[in-house]
């Protein structure tokens, strides 16, 4: 039996998610035994080749990216968006709140006018092509990545939670941030990370994006109860476009 071909492509991102995959250490050896990992340059040059699983890291910020992603989609049986950059636009999307020319000048100074630094509004993968699965998080949780990949390889629909972080946070018996009168995004953010942040005393700031049907109305009223302002929350959320 030929091994499934898996290709990983990076777009605009910090490659932190790929690093998470590398951090699987011993498990990565298991993974490599099961699949043929196709390096992206190679994958793109062999015109005829298809990939069983294409993994997209990063967000779409340039016109060239759109074309490249469309080609990948046309050759991939399953396309996975990996990490917040790919699933929601991630940190890169912050620039959408500013004038693009200003962004270019701000980031690159005078070089900002050079054509390869041409930029457009940041998009998530699913805003450009059809995405089969999204692996959330900034960075992704590698145990979840491994679980999803194994599920796909065995021919099963992966389990991707659509309930809030609180479920996992409570299960590991973390003292809730609200007990200290702090706001935490946990009640409206998608679980799957295992709630690491509250467990070390940070609030969840929503890196995995919102659950499908968040009760935002409640979030606002509840914050009032805790004497916090909507702006506090907005500031938290803008980083990951969870608003």
């Amino acid at each position, binding site marked *: 039996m030929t091994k499934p071909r898996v290709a990983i492509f990076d777009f605009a991102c910090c490659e932190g998610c790929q690093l998470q995959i590398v951090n699987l250490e011993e*498990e990565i050896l*298991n*993974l490599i035994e*099961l699949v043929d990992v196709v390096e992206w340059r190679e994958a793109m040059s062999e015109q005829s080749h298809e990939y069983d699983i294409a993994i997209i890291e990063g967000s779409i910020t340039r016109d060239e990216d759109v074309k490249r992603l469309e080609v990948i989609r046309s050759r991939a049986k399953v396309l996975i968006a990996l990490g917040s950059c790919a699933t929601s636009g991630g940190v890169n999307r912050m620039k959408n709140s500013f004038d693009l020319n200003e962004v270019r000048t701000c980031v690159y100074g005078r070089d900002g006018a050079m054509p390869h630094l041409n930029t457009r509004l940041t998009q998530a993968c699913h805003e450009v092509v059809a995405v089969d699965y999204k692996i959330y998080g900034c960075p992704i949780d590698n145990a979840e990545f491994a*679980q999803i990949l*194994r*599920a796909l*390889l*065995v021919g*099963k629909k992966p*389990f991707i939670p*659509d*309930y*809030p972080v*609180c*479920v996992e946070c*409570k*299960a590991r*018996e*973390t*003292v*809730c941030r*609200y*007990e200290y009168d702090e706001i*935490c995004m*946990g*009640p*409206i953010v998608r679980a799957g990370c295992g709630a690491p942040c509250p467990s070390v005393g940070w609030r969840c700031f929503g890196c995995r994006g919102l*659950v*499908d*049907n*968040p*009760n935002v*109305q*409640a*979030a606002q*009223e*509840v914050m009032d*109860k805790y004497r916090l302002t909507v702006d506090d929350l907005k500031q938290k959320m803008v980083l990951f476009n969870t608003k």
Partner: protein
Amino acid sequence: MSVSTVSKEQFRSFVAALIGSEQTVVGVQAKNDKFAFGPLRRAEDLRLDYDVTILSPRKYLLPPKETLLNFQVAGDSQTVCDCQPMVLIGVHPYDMAAISQMDELFSQGEYDTHYMNRRQAITIIACDVATASANVFASSMNTATVDSGFDILLTDIGGAYVVQADTDKGRALVKKMAGAKPAGADDMAKRKAVQEKNRTGLNKHVLECKPAFLPKLLEKTYDHPVWEDKARLCYSCGSCNQVCPTCYCFDVQDEVNWDLKTGSRCRVWDGCLLENFATVAGNHNFRKNRSARFRHRLYRKGKYVPSKIGGQIACVGCGRCVSACTAKIANPVDVYNTLLENTEIG
């Protein structure tokens, strides 16, 4: 029933010896400024003066994630039986009541060997409440004290514990408590005072009716506005389910190992407040509205589960959901009292 008295020092030595034995010893310990059940490494970490633990001891009877079977992918499966002997120290009466309810639910009808085997391997050392927590209302639910289910019941009477052993397992343990002597009338009186005090004193929220009346009340309140009023703020976060000692709903998931040939079938905690708890194929959700899910939990506690366990109310008044709900809407007493206020009961 045999009742003895043991000094706190002597009890600590007993716990230290237990920790040295081959059984797993789990007890209540501090976790930041709260408390939690966890494996005891040192006898002095045991905190029987605790108010309430974040999660209930259910996590040892029905773990958040438990392997039911190991399997060959697309093939046969083998039962995984987890029956490691364990001593659970410091179970409060309301949690004991909750465990007894689960014992009944998992053994009635189709007998659940996974739960029951684990249960039988656990020795429970319960203890009367020494400090009331911020939201406890066990007095309202008749669960502030307990007279069955445990192997041993401890009561802190100042410098010593009164130790009541109710089972062979319990009596065998008490035999190992060096220095334990039959409890005198004086100690028994002190114990009675502690229990009497708790029977009325663990009541931060006061239910305005007898708990036994709740099933009857709930017959009339299905369309009451309170469900919508409260659930408007519900995040569907399931925190109220997760922390509850009497919630036992679960999901079942298959996990595959890296060889892609073997794996395990696990059961994991689920919660009826979560949005897709009742969703089936075609994305049809039988409990689509937040209010319907919010109502389901309080009906389950006050009516549905009681009908399966001889009328015992499945809220034991631990108050955990009251603290855990970030929207501050989960308090059962609040809801039941609102229903009582404006419902005519014939």
